[in-house]
């Protein structure tokens, strides 16, 4: 396959950045998207150019480190797929592919396609946990959990924290990410004692980081590699309102 890539290049946080066009030839359809960039990067190195910086680690769709906006869609158009799991066979020979970093003020670009997502960590710090020091836990069977609740909690807990929801949201909102954690813990008996204070603290932190508000467009859940459902946001809203009513 021969492709034209338009890639966002930005040498550092202070650089203004620009789109650079690369023509790449002989791309194998069996390559993953990142492998295609690997090969391009090796060529760039040999030509003495700076290779394209991008985040990636596990390359099996679970660590949440990779993420690019490909042709205007976070992680590309393949549904429920992270960038690392996307393969070139889904592109047409001769296609032009635009590659950009996640765009959001709370995700400043560090270099090229690498962004700083530490705002997500701070949202978790605000309350995305159950306060249980190691060594003090009661027997695991002491509190039964309805299977339906456990399954729904699991669905929310599968969030990989990649940030695609923010990248896709027209408002740059982190609601799906925040709601996924709030919902996960609020559906389980273990999460009840801190349920309302958690929701309040996490939502307030999300705001403080500069993310936009949710307008329920559903763009987030549509690009989410794990398909976190939109009703997690309703759960978050409900907990948040209750917390404020108290």
């Amino acid at each position: 396959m021969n492709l034209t890539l338009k890639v966002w290049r930005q040498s550092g946080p202070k650089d203004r950045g620009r789109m650079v066009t690369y023509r790449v030839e002989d791309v194998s359809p069996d390559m993953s998207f990142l492998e295609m960039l690997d090969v391009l990067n090796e060529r760039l190195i040999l030509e003495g150019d700076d290779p394209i910086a991008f985040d990636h680690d596990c390359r099996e769709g679970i660590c949440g480190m990779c993420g690019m906006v490909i042709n205007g869609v976070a992680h590309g158009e393949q549904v429920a797929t992270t960038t690392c799991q996307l393969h070139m066979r889904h592109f047409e020979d001769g296609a032009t592919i635009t590659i950009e970093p996640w765009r959001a003020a709370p995700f400043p670009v560090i270099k090229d396609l690498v962004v700083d997502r530490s705002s997500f960590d701070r949202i978790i710090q605000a309350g995305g946990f159950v306060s249980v020091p190691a060594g003090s836990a009661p027997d695991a069977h002491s509190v039964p959990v309805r299977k339906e609740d456990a399954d729904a909690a699991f669905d929310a807990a599968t969030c990989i924290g990649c940030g695609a929801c923010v990248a896709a949201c027209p408002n740059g909102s982190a609601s799906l990410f925040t709601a996924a954690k709030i919902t996960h813990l609020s559906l389980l008996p273990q999460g009840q004692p801190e349920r309302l204070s958690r929701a309040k603290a996490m939502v307030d932190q999300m705001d403080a980081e500069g993310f936009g508000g949710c307008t329920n467009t559903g763009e987030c859940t549509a690009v989410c590699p794990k398909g976190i459902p939109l009703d997690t946001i309703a759960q978050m809203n409900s907990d948040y309102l209750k917390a404020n009513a108290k």
Partner: protein
Amino acid sequence: MNFVEGAEIRDTKAPAGPIEERWEKRKFGARLVNPANKRKLDVIVVGTGLAGGSAAATLGELGYNVKSFCYQDSPRRAHSIAAQGGINAAKNYRGDGDSIYRLFYDTVKGGDFRARESNVYRLAEVSVNIIDQAVAQGVPFAREYGGLLDTRSFGGAQVSRTFYARGQTGQQLLLGAYQALERQIAAGTVEMFTRHEMLDLIVSDGRARGVIVRDMVTGDIERHFADAVVLATGGYGNVFYLSTNAKGCNTTAIWRAHERGAYFANPCYTQIHPTCIPVSGDHQSKLTLMSESLRNDGRVWVPLRKNDSRAPGDIPDAERDYYLERIYPAFGNLVPRDIASRAAKNVCDEGRGVGPGGLGVYLDFRDAIGRLGRDAVEKKYGNLFEMYERITGENPYETPMRIYPAVHYTMGGLWVDYDLQSTVPGLFVIGEANFSDHGANRLGASALMQGLADGYFVLPTTIGDYLADGPFGDVDEEAVAAAEVAVRTKIDRLMSVNGTRTPDSFHRELGKLMWDYCGMDRTEESLRKALERIPELRQEFWENVKVTGVAEELNQTLEKAGRVADFFDLAELMCLDALVRSESCGGHFRAESQDSDGEALRDDENFAHVSAWEHSPDGTPVLHKEPLEYEYVKMSQRSYK
């Protein structure tokens, strides 16, 4: 490569007495640190996977000042997150005859009698607390309709002791530890340094007192001091270039510690996982594991004839070789990982492999679909089939999957005593980075168990005994400067070669060499060849590598080059260790040491020991043997016929 033999290691600090009382004894014997003093004690934890994340969180909860480092952009990314199958615990919730003793027994036996009994017993003992802790944190384990936890049997175990969260157990457990860690960061007990890579260990007055790290965003070389250093930096499977490890996994932290005096134990013990998606071409950057559970219903086969290029559907049953069922009629497709892996390699070596390059075997669900129906198969394995199709573009409901073994886990690592302390006082090593609990082969669903046992329960107790003597005062400036200069010199050297090959091209070549010569089966000849070839390649690397850009910014090529440089040195020690250990055991298969059926043959008389390697300044490794004694589990030869 030469080596010399040093003194035997006799004392591992494990208390004597009945095995079930040893951990209790050690806990009681370990000195406590007064809460007011904990605030004055600093601990550095490198790595934020299950072991490092849980350790940093727990040490923070105890009141120590913790500094935590990871190379990723968030502690939540560590590769523990990718573990699929589950976590073992001797809860015996099923009443199926499981017990702490049975988990201990299975682990010692599964490790092919190359693990320490005391350590393994403690692991089994602590396993039950891990489940309690995780559930209390809100880890959404699979549950039954009654609301209680579900378990499954895994990796050929005869009891159902594996707790799981669909195929994402590692993710859920890691997020539990990550959340505990973030809680401590918010509380101010842990200071987090993301995108920081440890490049050297500071040893002052014979104690580990800090680390030199590189801020991967700015390129700044920083020094961080502490009263103790904990390494939880994972395994070194990426020495093979292609493995199921994350792209960033590397050996640099433990290798630098090794060069600063920590012994490296059993580097040759490597686990090869039989069910991975095969390589599709030269561009391949990593390998993806398919859960082992697939072997419960899939049948493994290759064509009877060599170089049979027919589509799998066109090959009639009579011309198929269901080789695992043929060779191991009792266990069939469910033989342990190492055996399944080697059998696949053998049939491919015979020229009967399938797919690109002939490096693959079929894992066929035709019969399972026929027997259970497509819906039932989809229910059980739907997500795995989807993942397979995403990567290969083939539909496993219609064409059999192709699988091939891949490097998955390294049982070797830095040598530690019962307290998880290395040979450098004040340097503790936990999780996959140490060598301690799995012997020569790790059982399925035991890696998560070990990482969390070390981090939540073992280290926080044992490190206190060491820290009771602290704080240790000022760090010797000379030692710090020496480490910092070493780091800067290496970076400058890498930046200045300006050759004609990329770091990745060297890494690929080294990986191929290791896979061919020190992979699934090893011979004296192949290992000697590797030991000849590695130094040549390393020399070429230092003369011909090309790193672009500058060191004072985010430079992924430089990061890569530094890691590859350390892999060369590690690869050499792995081959040496594999050469010296002329027996077969667990994941280490020496072709010279097999029985008449081609099964691994241990040599307990000569090799019932841990090989702990000491780095010496002149480059000649010193081998220290730690004899292994089995008081409880009788040594026997494994057989799966």
